[in-house]
C-alpha cells in the first residue's frame, strides 16, 4: 500500500504542471538570469586602460620630463604596450572637451604653467589619473629637496632611482579560488528552491485531509493507517523536490559553471536537509493554517521569500556581519 500510494503520488505531482513550473522551471530561469547578469560583474571591476587626452601645446612639448613620464606608461598611436596605464591621445582643447562630453575619454590634461586635469565625473579611473599626475609633481619635489641637500645625488642616479618605480608588492591569495561574491546569490537561490518544496508538502496534505479536499475525504474512509499514507505521500513530495534541487545544482555547476569551491558534497548534504525542511514546512502550514488554498500559498510564498531575503537572495551582504 505504501509503495502503491508512493507511485500514484509521484504521478500526481509530476503532472501538476503549474507547481512544476514554480519549483523547477522558475529556479532554472532565475539561475539563468543571475548568470547572465553577473557574467561580466567580476570583469567589470577589471582594470582596462584609462583613456585620456593631452592638449598638445608648446608648453607641454617643452616639459620633456613630463612628456617622457606620461609616455612611459601610456599607449599612443605609435607606441603600443600591453601593461600601459593610459591610452593617450593628443588633441586640441576643443577636441578634448568634445571627447570628454561624449564619454570617449575619462579626462584631459592641460600642461602649461602647471599641470591641470579636467574630468567629468568622480570615480576610480579619475582618481588613478590624478594620483599619477600627483606622483609626477611629488617626484619633482623630492628631486628638488634632495638635490638641494646633496647636489651630487643627481649624478649618482637619483633620478633613475625615482623613475625606476620598483614594485614592492607581492600577491598572497587566501583561498583556493578567487573571491566571487555572486556565488551567494546562487546559494540563496538553491535555498529558495529547497523551500519551494513546501508547495509539494501543501499539495500532499491537502490531498490527505478530509476537510481540505474530496480526495482526502475518500482516502480517510479507506482502511489504511493514516501514518502510512502520510509517509508515502511525504516521500513522493520529497523525492520530486530533491530531484529538482539536484537538477538545479547540476545546471548551475555544469552548464553555468558556477564555482562552488570544493564544498560540493556539503552543499548536497545541505540540500537534502533543506528539501526535508521545505517539504515539512509545507505540510505544517497546510495543517495549521485555516483557510483556503490561496491564503496558504500566499503565506508560503511570503514567508519563504522573507527567509530568502534574510539569506541574501536580494542583497549579498545580508549574511555578513
Amino acid at each position, binding site marked *: 500500500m505504501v509503495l502503491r500510494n508512493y507511485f500514484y503520488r509521484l504521478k500526481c505531482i509530476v503532472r501538476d504542471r*503549474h507547481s512544476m*513550473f514554480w519549483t523547477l522551471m522558475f529556479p532554472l530561469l532565475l539561475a539563468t*538570469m*543571475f548568470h*547572465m*547578469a553577473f*557574467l*561580466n560583474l*567580476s*570583469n*567589470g*571591476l*577589471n*582594470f582596462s586602460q584609462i583613456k585620456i587626452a593631452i592638449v598638445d601645446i608648446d608648453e607641454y612639448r617643452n616639459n620633456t620630463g613630463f612628456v617622457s613620464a606620461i609616455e612611459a606608461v601610456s599607449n599612443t598611436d605609435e607606441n603600443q604596450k600591453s601593461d600601459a*596605464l593610459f591610452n593617450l591621445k593628443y588633441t586640441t582643447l576643443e577636441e578634448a572637451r568634445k571627447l*570628454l*562630453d*561624449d564619454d570617449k575619454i575619462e579626462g584631459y590634461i592641460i600642461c602649461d604653467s*602647471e*599641470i*591641470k*586635469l*579636467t*574630468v*567629468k*565625473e*568622480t570615480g*576610480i579611473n*579619475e*582618481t*588613478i589619473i*590624478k*594620483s*599619477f*599626475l600627483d606622483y609626477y*609633481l*611629488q*617626484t619633482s*619635489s*623630492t628631486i628638488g629637496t*634632495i638635490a638641494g641637500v*646633496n647636489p651630487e*645625488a643627481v649624478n*649618482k642616479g*637619483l633620478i633613475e*632611482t*625615482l623613475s*625606476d618605480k*620598483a*614594485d*614592492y*608588492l*607581492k*600577491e*598572497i591569495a*587566501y583561498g583556493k579560488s*578567487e*573571491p566571487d*561574491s555572486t556565488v551567494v546569490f546562487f546559494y540563496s537561490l538553491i535555498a529558495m528552491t529547497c523551500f519551494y518544496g513546501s508547495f509539494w508538502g501543501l499539495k500532499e496534505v491537502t490531498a490527505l485531509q478530509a476537510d481540505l479536499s474530496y480526495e482526502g475525504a475518500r482516502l480517510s474512509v479507506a482502511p489504511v493507517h493514516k501514518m502510512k499514507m502520510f509517509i508515502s505521500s511525504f516521500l513522493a513530495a520529497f523525492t520530486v523536490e530533491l530531484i529538482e534541487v539536484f537538477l538545479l545544482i547540476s545546471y548551475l555547476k555544469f552548464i553555468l559553471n558556477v564555482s562552488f569551491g570544493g564544498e560540493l558534497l556539503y552543499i548536497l548534504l545541505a540540500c537534502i536537509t533543506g528539501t526535508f525542511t521545505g517539504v515539512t514546512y509545507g505540510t505544517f502550514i497546510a495543517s495549521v493554517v485555516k483557510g483556503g488554498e490561496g491564503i496558504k500559498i500566499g503565506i508560503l510564498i511570503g514567508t519563504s521569500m522573507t527567509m530568502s531575503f534574510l539569506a541574501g537572495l536580494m542583497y549579498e551582504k545580508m549574511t*555578513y556581519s
Partner: protein
Amino acid sequence: MQVFKAFFKIIVKNLGQILIYIVVFLSVTVALTKLNNTADYTGFTETKVNIAFINNDEDSWLVEGLRNQLLKHTNIISVDDDTRKLQDALFFREVEYIVRIPHGFAEKFLNKEDVTIEKTTIPNSSREIYIDMLINKYLNTAKAYISYSDGLSGETILSQIEKDLAQETKVSMAFPTDNITLIEQRAFFFNYLAYALFAVLILGVSSVMMVFGKPDLKRRNLCSPLRQREMNFQLIIGNVSFAVITWLLLSITGFFLFGSYMLSLNGLLFMLNSLLFTFAALSISFLIGNVVKTQNAMHAVTNVVALGTSFISGVFVPQDLLSESVLRIGSFTPTYWYVVNNNTIANLVNFSTEKLVSIFGNMLIMSGFTAAIISITLVITKQRRTSN
C-alpha cells in the same frame, strides 16, 4: 460605456496582486533614496577604497608613515588579523585590498635589502592598481631619501616625504555636475520603474483580456446589441487609461523624491521616456493577455517577462557591468532602450543636438516596438477569429 466600466471592475477585483508590485516598488525606491543620502558634494573628490592594514612588523616611522599616507587616500577598515575574517571581509567587499607588512620589513628596507609587502586583493582590478600605486609611491620616495641623504634622522625623512606627497594636481570638472548620489538615485528610480510598471501592466491587462477572451462570455458579448467596433474601442480606451494611470501613479512618486528636478528638462525627458516605455509595455501585455488562458500561466508569464527583460536590460545590474552578448539579447526588448535613455538623461548636462538625437532615436525605437507588437497581436487575434 459598459465595457469600459467592466474593464475597471475586473481590475479592482485583481487589485490585491497588482498592489503588491506597486507597494514593493515604492518602499524599495523610497527607502533607497531616503537612506542613501550621503554628503552633498559636487566637485571632484578622490575615490576612497576600503582597505585593511595589518602590521606584523614592529612599530617604526617607515610603517607609520605608510599608514598615514594610506589614511589620507583610503578608508582603513579594522578587521581582525584572522585568515577567515579577512577572507570574509574580502569576499563581501567590506575591504577590497589587504596590506600586510611582514615582520622585519622596516629594518630590511632601511638596510636597502630587497623586501616586499604582502597584498591580498581582487586580482586585476582598478582598485588594486590604484593602491599599488599609492604604496609604491611612498616607498620609492622613502628609498630615494634613504639612499641619497645620509645621516638624516627618520623623523626628518618622514616629514620630507610627507611634504613631497602633499603635492597635488588641480582637478576641475568639465561641466557643472550634480551630486553623484542624486544622479544615481534618479537613474535607479526610473530604471526600476520598468520592472514594476511591466509587472503591473501584464497582470492588469491580461487578467481583463482573459475574462473577455473566455469563449462563452465572448459569444454572449458578440450577440449583444453593442457593435463590435464600439466594444473594441472601449477596451482600447480601458487599456490605455489603465496604463496611463499606472504610469502617473508610479512616476509621480518621482516628484515626491526629487522635487523640482522633475520639472527641469531632464525630469521632463525622464517622464516622456517612461511614458513611451509604458506604451511599449502595454502592447506586450496586450499580446500576453490575448495568448494566455489561465491565471496560473499569467503569473508565470508575468514573472518571466518582467523579471527576464529587466535582468538582461540592465534594470537591476547596471548596463556597464553586463557582458556584450547579454546586452545584445537585451536590445531586442524595449526595456533595453528605455534604460539606455535613462542613464543618458541622468547624466545629461550639456544638451547638445547629438545627445538629444540619440535620446529621441531610442524613443523612436521603443515606439517601433509598440507598433510592431500591436500589429502582431492584431494578426493573431484576427487569425483566431477567422479560424473559430
